[in-house]
C-alpha cells in the first residue's frame, strides 16, 4: 500500500482524528494527573469505562434498548473517578492512592461481572475498551470524542492556574481562600471524562502509556506547565502516526505499537539521564 492511499483511507483518517483527540487529552488532563501524583486514576477510570460499557450492553440486551455503550462507559468512568476523588479530597497522595485502589477493585469486579453476563456475540462491543479500536472508530464516536475533548480543553485553559495551585500546594491554596475541593472535583471530573474517551481510542491496557508517560517525559524535558502540555501533545501525535503507519504495513494492533514507541522514548530519556 503506498503512503498516499493510506492517508486517503477512511479508517486511517478516523484513526488520525481519534489520535489527535487522544493527544489533546493527554496534553491537558494527562499533565494534570501526573502533576497531582494520581497516575493510577487513568487505569481505574479506564477499567470503570470497560465495566460501564459491559453494563450498557447488558441493559440493552435485558430491556431491548439501543443505548450507545459509550455513554454508559462515560457515566461509569466519571462516577468511579469521582468516588476515588472523594476518598482523596484531602490532597494526601497516600489517601488518594488508597481510594483509587479501592474504586479500581470495585470497578474491575463490576466489569468482570457484566462481561460474564452478556451474550458472547456482544463481547466484541466491549472488547474495544480493553484493547482499543482506533481503526474502528465510527463517525459517531469521533463526534462524542470531540465534544468531550473540546469541553475538557476549555475547562483546562480556564482553570489551569487553580489546577496547578492545588497540585503544587493544596493546603496553602486552601489557606489563601481558594475553593480547593471544588477544583479538586472539577479536575477529577474532566480527567475521568477525558480518560474514558481516550480509552475508547487506545484501550484500557494502553491508556497508561498514552496518558501518563508523555507528560512524564515532557516534565523531564521542559519546565513550564504549558510547554509540557504541548510537548505531550507532540509526543502522542508523532508516535501515534508512526504507530498507525506501521500497523498498516505490518498487521499489528496500532495501540500496541504506539505504546511500545512511547515507552521506548521514555526509557531512552531515563537512560540518558542516568
Amino acid at each position, binding site marked *: 500500500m503506498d503512503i498516499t492511499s493510506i492517508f486517503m483511507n477512511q479508517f486511517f483518517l478516523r484513526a488520525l482524528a481519534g489520535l489527535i483527540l487522544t493527544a489533546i487529552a493527554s496534553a491537558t488532563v494527562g499533565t494534570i494527573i501526573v502533576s497531582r501524583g494520581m497516575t493510577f486514576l487513568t487505569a481505574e477510570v479506564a477499567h470503570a469505562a470497560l465495566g460501564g460499557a459491559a453494563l450498557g450492553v447488558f441493559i440493552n440486551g435485558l430491556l431491548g434498548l439501543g443505548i450507545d455503550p459509550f455513554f454508559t462507559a462515560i457515566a461509569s468512568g466519571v462516577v468511579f473517578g469521582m468516588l476515588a476523588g472523594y476518598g482523596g479530597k484531602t490532597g494526601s497522595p497516600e489517601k488518594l492512592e488508597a481510594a483509587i485502589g479501592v474504586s479500581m477493585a470495585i470497578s474491575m469486579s463490576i466489569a468482570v461481572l457484566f462481561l460474564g453476563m452478556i451474550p458472547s456475540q456482544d463481547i466484541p462491543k466491549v472488547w474495544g475498551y480493553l484493547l482499543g479500536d482506533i481503526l474502528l472508530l465510527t463517525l459517531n464516536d469521533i463526534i462524542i470524542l470531540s465534544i468531550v475533548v473540546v469541553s475538557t480543553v476549555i475547562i483546562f485553559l480556564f482553570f489551569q*492556574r487553580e489546577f496547578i495551585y492545588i497540585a*503544587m*500546594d493544596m493546603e496553602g491554596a486552601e489557606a*489563601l481562600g481558594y475553593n480547593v475541593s471544588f477544583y479538586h472535583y472539577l479536575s477529577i471530573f474532566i480527567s475521568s471524562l477525558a480518560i474514558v474517551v481516550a480509552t475508547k481510542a487506545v484501550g484500557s491496557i494502553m491508556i497508561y502509556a498514552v496518558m501518563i508517560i508523555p507528560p512524564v517525559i515532557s516534565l523531564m524535558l521542559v519546565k513550564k506547565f504549558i510547554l509540557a502540555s504541548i510537548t505531550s501533545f507532540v509526543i502522542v501525535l508523532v508516535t501515534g502516526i508512526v504507530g498507525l503507519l506501521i500497523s498498516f504495513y505490518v498487521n499489528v494492533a496500532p495501540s500496541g505499537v504506539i505504546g511500545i514507541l512511547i515507552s521506548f522514548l521514555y526509557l531512552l530519556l531515563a537512560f540518558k539521564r542516568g
Partner: protein
Amino acid sequence: MAIDVIHIENVSVEFNGAVILNDISLEIYGNEFTVVIGPNGAGKTTFIKSILGLIHPSKGEIKVFGHNPFREGEYIRKIVGYVPQYIRISDVIPMNVLETVLMGILVKKKPPRIPSKTDIQSALQALKVVDMVEYRERYIHELSGGERQRVLIARAMVRKPKYLILDEPFTGVDVKSQRELIEFLHKIHVENKVGMLIVVHDLAPIIRYVDKILLLNKRVVAYGSPRDVLKKETIKEAYGAEVEILEHDKICYPLLGDVHRHR
C-alpha cells in the same frame, strides 16, 4: 470588646470525641508580636486554624478584629496572612517564585485569573520585603528551606494583611537562615505594623522580639510576657516534669530535642 484584638472566649475543639482544645479564653492584641509554644500535639495548629476559620470549634466564640472567621472567612483571609505548618510543595509541577507569590493575590480575581501589571508589582514588592526579588524566576522546589519560607511569607504578605500567622516557620531551616527569617519578621512587624502570631519550638533565637508568649497544652497553661510565662513551674506543667530547663537572665527555656515530625 476592642476592635484590634483576636478575642477567644470559652473555645473548645473536639475531633471524633477527643478534646483537643479545652475551654480557651484569651485576647491576643493585633499590634503585638505573640509566640505560641507547647509540646507536640498540644493543639497549636488547631488553635491557629480555629482563628482562621479553617476549623469549627465545638464550643465558644472567636472574633478576629471584630469579625467572625466563618461568616466572614473571605474578609479574614484578606486581613490575616497565613503560612501553614506542613507545606507539601510538589516538585513535579514547575512553579516559579513570582507565580507562587501571585497565588496570594490572584485569589481575589475570577478564573482564569490573569495577573495585571499592578498584581505583578504587588508581588515584586512583597518579594522585596523578604529580599527575594532576584529569585523571581527560580523554581520554588529548587530553593533551600529558608528561601522557600521567605517566598511563602511574601505570598502571605502580598495582600498587605494587618496580621500574620505562621505555624512553625523554622522547620527544616538552618540556624543562619532562621536568624535571617526572624529579622525579616521583626522588620515586617515594626515597619509594616503587622501583628504576628508565630508557633515555634525554639524560643531562644526569637525571644528578644516577643511581646507575649502563649504556652498551650490543650488549654492555656500561661499567657503573658516572657518573664511571666517562662517560669520553671509553668514549663514543667506544659512539657512534663522531665523536661530540661535552661535558665538565663531570669528566663527559663524548655530544652527540646528535635521535636519536628515530618508528614
